[in-house]
């Protein structure tokens, strides 16, 4: 009951937040964080629950973004169609990626997805007839206010968490975790591991593609180096998952807000309070953060929440 109440309060806060905080700057940060909730949750389904660690989620994100963009530049229809089809096209690509990459296991799979992401970045850069290459795609935003985007992002984030929650409570959820724990045992228990790994990948790529399409609509500008970025998308997806907590439903949501908050703190050089060079230090700090999390909070902030509470509590009592 207490948990349900917490979720209801969280939901109410999320809905009234933009009515209270009217600053476009903070609204923008929360919108981006909500987008990362979607990507992080999607990555977590494949990597955290199914155990197939992807280093190439930028590929699905970029495909979704470019689907929405190309709908405008080539088909001359609204980029909002991309919201529906971005995920579907990313899924089709996911089908191909799964067909190729699921022949490999563990680190080899991770490397194959890493290569996949880079391949799509190069395709988007060089296929200028379709993507306009490095010029990128610029569209006109539908809304001048950030409010509609906030609610769309919130709805999508909620949808992705809820769907993944339902999936994990179903037979598929059991199968995904079985595959993560021991693929050979799973196979001998009658689980078609190739099929279920692909199902996990398809759901994951769908939501990531949808987030990409949302990004196109919201930011109104994309180029290959932004949406197919290894650093800013693929690695960020992993960080969101690991920091928040792999194989937990709410982990990526928490991780998204931590990571976007950190990224912005450094990008703005501590909101202008620190010298400008600190904005260059974010890669270093992210690296240290990963080391810290893996050493002390291997299950992430959500997975190790009890541990954090215990330790913080102990520090509190010993100092008093």
């Amino acid at each position, binding site marked *: 009951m207490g948990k349900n109440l917490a979720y209801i309060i969280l939901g109410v806060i999320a809905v009234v937040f933009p009515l209270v905080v009217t600053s476009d700057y903070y609204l923008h940060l929360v919108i981006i964080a909500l987008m990362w909730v979607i990507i992080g949750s999607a990555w977590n389904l494949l990597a955290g629950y199914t155990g197939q660690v992807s280093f190439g989620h930028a590929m699905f994100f970029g495909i979704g973004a470019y689907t929405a963009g190309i709908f405008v530049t080539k088909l001359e229809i609204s980029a909002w169609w991309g919201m529906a089809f971005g995920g579907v096209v990313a899924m089709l690509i996911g089908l191909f990626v799964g067909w190729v990459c699921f022949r490999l296991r563990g680190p080899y799979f991770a490397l194959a997805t890493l290569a996949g992401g880079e391949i799509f970045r190069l395709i988007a850069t060089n296929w200028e007839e379709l993507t306009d290459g490095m010029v990128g795609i610029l569209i006109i935003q539908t809304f001048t206010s950030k409010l509609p985007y906030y609610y769309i992002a919130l709805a999508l984030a909620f949808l992705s968490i809820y769907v993944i929650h339902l999936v994990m409570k179903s037979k598929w959820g059991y199968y995904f975790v079985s595959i993560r724990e021991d693929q050979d045992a799973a*196979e001998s228990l009658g689980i078609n591991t190739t099929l279920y790994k692909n199902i996990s990948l398809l759901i994951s790529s769908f939501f990531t593609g949808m987030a990409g399409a949302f990004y196109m609509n919201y930011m109104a500008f994309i180029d290959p180096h932004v949406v197919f970025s290894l650093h800013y998308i693929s690695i960020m997806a992993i960080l969101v998952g690991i920091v928040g907590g792999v194989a937990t439903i709410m982990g990526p949501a928490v991780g998204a807000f931590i990571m976007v908050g950190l990224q912005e703190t450094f990008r703005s050089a501590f909101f202008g309070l620190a010298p400008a060079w600190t904005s260059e230090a974010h890669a270093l700090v992210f690296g240290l953060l990963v080391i810290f999390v893996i050493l002390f909070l291997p299950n992430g902030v959500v997975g190790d929440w009890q541990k954090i509470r215990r330790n913080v509590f102990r520090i509190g009592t010993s100092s008093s």
Partner: protein
Amino acid sequence: MALLEVKNLTKVFGGLRAVSDVTFHVNQGEIMGLIGPNGSGKTTIFNCINNYYPITSGDVIFKGNSIKGMKTHTICHLGIGRTFQVVKPLSRMTVLDNVTASAFCRINIIRDAREEALGILEFCGLIDQKDKLAKSLPIGGRKRLEIARALATKPELLLLDETAAGLNPSELDEAIELIKKIRDGGITVLIVEHIMKVIMTISDRIHAINFGQTIAEGTPEEVANNPAVIEAYLGEAYAQC
């Protein structure tokens, strides 16, 4: 009627003939033992039956149809369950979830699958441990979990790969009881085992191999008195006297 027929099974790893021209069958409702010294190819035969390894030549026939080349998970759906000698628990899942995941092989509804899993845990004597993580079980529990998981797929034929190895004497007696109970439940059992106490008491027939080749087949007494078997286990000197 023969439930499973293994015909001229041969498996070659590079230059090594791990299994060479082995033929035997398992009748419906019996416990068939498969014995042989270390490295004689027992586990390889299991791995060939459920196509964990592709067969070099020969055939495996289950209920009259060849299952050679079928996917491992398809073979499980056809009704062959197996356990692993080196146990493979789904470590970070609870014991109940381990068995529930396999029960989904036949049952699609979560509540029914859990119900089925609880029944099987009761049957295997693991019900008290159902909420523990699989990795926290001792070896005896893990071996039982292997059996419970295989049973949850509702097999007609159960392949048990050294489920008694590493157990203490009292656990051993419990394991023998469990295997008999499984047979009495109508499941045919093909068992690989080193512990003679187990294999001699429960098997209806035994097939003995050495260096990947058949050396004897028959009732436990026949096989135990067979010179070739004695030679394989104890050396030539004992076989002659």
